[in-house]
């Protein structure tokens, strides 16, 4: 080889610097990835991280170099401190993901090379995925998929050796071209994604456990009730579960979804007792005609309760039924579940227990709420029986109490007294707490039951949506010979809350702005999509995969069949995707210089001088000049200038010259009508 080595250009040795266009694209993709976490990230942290991104962009205007070490180091410490104080230890799920997000943001601060930018994008793919640890909704999935495609488009811009146009900052067209081609590639990959999703063999059992401690949980019903807790939920319209009944939907007043049963009162809060005996040891009789079968599609509540209709006949899958009628799962529900259940709405529950066994349901802390205790003691002294005492309490509520969504705060240690004698206005939890307290004080065994009431009937899908805002608390009293009887003191105050089902139907003032409006039909349809998504996509697992070919008469699809199907259909999908996307890469470039050059070619074609495929611009213009001597000078000049701007790297970046040449090419007319004649 005789050609000697030319000195190595810097590009190969030093990292390739990232331009402001690429940095802006990175910032946008990072921002979009962080917004996928906006649902759970504390607002202070979210705002802080977005501010950092904005400051990094502002810095880029000021200097092409990254901020110095003495700025980055304190920023690093401050960010970590903020993550720790806002979200908590990085060992938990929330803390870990928040730390990842913060580190990615800090990475943007120190990104100045293409290599850094690419690493950031790689991290963003993972970061976007962690959003699904918090929510698996259809909308979030769409958004994260869009973020991933944008990240790939950003990779297209992060070329190590950008051509002249990208360097010259032809920003808009470059970004558009990258977005267009990446979107097309994504569309081409879509069949492959679907095939892989359906046929890729799933694990029946996880290889390792959940990576986080779900004890922190999200808002919702828990194993404790204190005044003001449930009333916080009425604005939260997150669906908790959706129910479709096999037959008729029971009447709204029967739709009590039984959750945690709280039978301990410490003077401030109601908590779960230790009634951990099994339900089937309890005397339970029901009217067979009142049995309903239904399917519950439960969201990931991160807690251990199923919410069966009051009262379930037996424990559903992966749960046990306790003697107080709560259905508790073995592990926290961290992924949406589909459960079949059966309940009876008319029943007798624990009717033949001895009164001595009910001592636990009479316990009250000695010195709490003396006035309420005196009131209830008075009823008993008047010689009332259990039923009359219940009536007395309900009548009291009915006559002088009212129901509100925004109850005034109460002193924690004498909440019942304050509610009964001072404020006299409250939410369901106040009524059930006070009622249960009065019953116990009067010697009637009683306990608090929490759960949901009613639900919203989705007209488009014929199923019931139960949301956090439907959270409810009621009471149960035990009467010898009759067993536990549900008493809902709220019904004495606000009967419409019980009869109407959804809280939004019962209390129009509870509705958020978008409920009960012209948007309702759309919201209903959207909920149908969400439900479909839950059932078909989110709940798809090893079991369903085995039943995949059920409609083709194959009961159990085995692993090797799945792999075979995956390979065959995957190859077909890939081949189609590649063929389709490569075909789409064709067509004419949108480079304005080329467009103008083609215009020039068309003009010459009119005079019968078509460009041969073998001909470069110079040869072509020479031939054209020979055949059209009248315009020879202009043609030759245009051909030379085009070749110069197009193929000489030194001139290609000269945008001014490009624009001038584009104008000249566009003005060129090969027709015999010269410009002079028009003057």
């Amino acid at each position: 080889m005789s050609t000697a080595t030319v000195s190595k250009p810097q590009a190969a040795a030093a990292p390739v610097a990232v331009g402001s266009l690429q940095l802006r694209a990175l910032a946008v993709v990072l921002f979009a990835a962080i917004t996928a976490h906006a649902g759970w990230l504390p607002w202070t942290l979210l705002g802080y991280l977005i501010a950092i991104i904005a400051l990094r962009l502002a810095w880029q205007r000021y200097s092409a170099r990254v901020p110095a070490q003495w700025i980055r180091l304190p920023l690093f410490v401050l960010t970590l401190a903020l993550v720790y104080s806002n979200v908590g230890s990085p060992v938990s799920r929330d803390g870990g993901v928040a730390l990842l997000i913060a580190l990615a943001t800090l990475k943007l601060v120190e990104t100045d090379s293409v290599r850094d930018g690419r690493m950031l994008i790689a991290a963003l793919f993972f970061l976007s995925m962690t959003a699904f640890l918090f929510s698996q909704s259809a909308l979030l999935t769409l958004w994260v998929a869009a973020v991933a495609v944008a990240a790939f488009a950003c990779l297209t811009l992060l070329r190590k050796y950008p051509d002249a146009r990208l360097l010259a900052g032809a920003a808009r067209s470059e970004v558009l071209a990258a977005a267009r081609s990446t979107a097309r590639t994504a569309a081409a990959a879509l069949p492959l994604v679907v095939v892989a999703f359906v046929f890729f063999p799933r694990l029946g059992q996880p290889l390792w456990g959940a990576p986080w401690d779900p004890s922190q949980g999200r808002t919702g019903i828990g194993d404790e009730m204190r005044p003001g807790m449930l009333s916080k939920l009425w604005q939260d319209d997150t669906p908790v579960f959706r129910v479709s009944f096999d037959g008729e939907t029971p009447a709204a007043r029967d739709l009590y979804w039984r959750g945690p049963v709280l039978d301990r009162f410490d003077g401030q809060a109601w908590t779960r007792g230790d009634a951990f005996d099994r339900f089937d040891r309890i005397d339970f009789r029901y009217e067979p005609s009142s049995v309903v079968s239904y399917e519950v599609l439960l969201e990931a509540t991160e807690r251990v309760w199923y919410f069966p209709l009051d009262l379930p006949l037996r424990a559903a899958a992966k749960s046990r039924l306790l003697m107080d009628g709560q259905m508790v799962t073995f592990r926290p529900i961290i992924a949406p579940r589909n459960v079949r259940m059966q309940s009876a709405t008319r029943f007798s529950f624990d009717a033949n227990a001895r009164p001595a066994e009910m001592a636990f349901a009479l316990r009250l802390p000695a010195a709490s709420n003396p006035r309420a205790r005196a009131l209830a003691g008075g009823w008993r002294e008047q010689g009332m029986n259990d039923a009359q005492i219940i009536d007395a309490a309900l009548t009291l509520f009915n006559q002088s109490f009212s129901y509100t969504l925004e109850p005034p705060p109460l002193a924690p240690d004498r909440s019942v007294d304050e509610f009964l004698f001072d404020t006299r206005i409250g939410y369901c939890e106040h009524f059930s707490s006070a009622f249960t307290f009065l019953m116990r004080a009067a010697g009637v065994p009683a306990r608090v039951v929490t759960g949901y009431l009613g639900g919203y009937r989705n007209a488009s899908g014929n199923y019931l949506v139960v949301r956090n805002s439907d959270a409810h608390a009621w009471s149960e009293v035990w009467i010898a010979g009759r067993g536990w009887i549900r008493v809902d003191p709220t019904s004495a105050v606000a009967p419409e809350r019980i009869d109407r089902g959804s809280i939004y139907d019962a209390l129009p003032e509870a509705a958020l702005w978008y409920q009960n409006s012209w948007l309702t039909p759309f919201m209903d349809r959207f909920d149908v999509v969400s439900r479909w998504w839950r059932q078909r996509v989110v709940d798809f697992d090893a079991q369903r995969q085995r039943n995949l070919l059920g409609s083709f008469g194959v009961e159990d699809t085995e692993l090797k069949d799945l792999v075979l199907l995956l390979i065959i259909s995957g190859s077909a999908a890939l081949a189609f995707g590649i063929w389709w996307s490569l075909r789409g890469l064709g067509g004419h470039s949108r480079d304005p210089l080329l467009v103008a050059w083609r215009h020039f070619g068309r003009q010459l074609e009119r005079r019968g001088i078509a460009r041969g495929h073998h001909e470069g611009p110079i040869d072509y213009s020479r031939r054209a000049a020979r055949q059209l001597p009248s315009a020879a000078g202009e043609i030759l000049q245009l051909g030379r200038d085009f070749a110069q701007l197009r193929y000489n790297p030194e001139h290609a970046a000269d945008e001014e010259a490009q624009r001038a040449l584009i104008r000249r090419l566009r003005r060129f007319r090969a027709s015999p009508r010269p410009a002079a004649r028009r003057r």
Partner: protein
Amino acid sequence: MAPEAASWGDRLGRLAERRLPALTRHRQAEPLPIHLHARRIYILPTRFGMVFGVIVLAMLMGALNFNNNPALLLAFLVSGLAIVSFHHTVGQLRGISLVSVSAARPHAGSRAHAVFSLKEGSGRVRPALMLEQSGQEIPFTLAADETAMVAVEFLPVRRGWQSIGRWRLWSEYPFGIVWAWSYLHPQEPILIYPKPEAAAPDLPQDDRDRPGAQQRSPGDDWAGLRDHRAGDPPRHVAWKASARSDRLLVKEFADPISEAMVFDYHQLARLHHEQRISRLTAWVLKAERAQASFRLVLPTQQLGPAAGSDFVSRCLRELALLP
């Protein structure tokens, strides 16, 4: 670590080329045009591509383990997009042909430009291509159905026929996860002209009959019309005559032999062989700049008298090919 690895890789590559001609045939010189088909395009992940692969694998494992289906969808989307893009990266090169390699008067000892004519024939834009040889990297874009002229710089050391060497055409477009490459090693050599002497003395004046006559003015001794050729000065174009015919014509002038200078190899006896060639080359170039006509006397033959770029090129060619 890098130089060690590179040298090992290079050594291995050279060994393979010697021992496995069938396997390495696409690295060896071959006649033009060189058409890049799928079997001669190689593809490997980049360093970033490996990091990307590890991350996608982690995503897949995590999503499968927790049976988190939206996460699994995302992992499939990311890996599916990457897999489709591998074919786009190969498609970047597939269907390109190297039509010709030419150089405009490369002289030994000074930087010269060779122009690769690369033709796109499948109607697809090929952005972010890279033509590379030993550290020289030229990024360019190939438009759909166009032929791009890519100028590379090289430093020829000797005069005579020489190969342009093996070049690598590669691309990691679109995502930089994998890079695809192919070798362009054209057999057709390029003629390297001799190195002109740096500080050559003035043109030999003594042989001229009429000093100062080399500044010929247009209109003198008009001899006829001929077709326009590359390099003809525009002021020689016969515009009126051209307008009448459909070709571009130039005026030609008669050049009396007596007016020509003589550049004689034998008269430069004080210099040795290569130095004489070098000086003659410098004179030829000077004469061309002065648009003078001259005669070139070489040991093997006599050229001219004549003028113009064609004649100069012929003289340079003969000088380059002197033994």
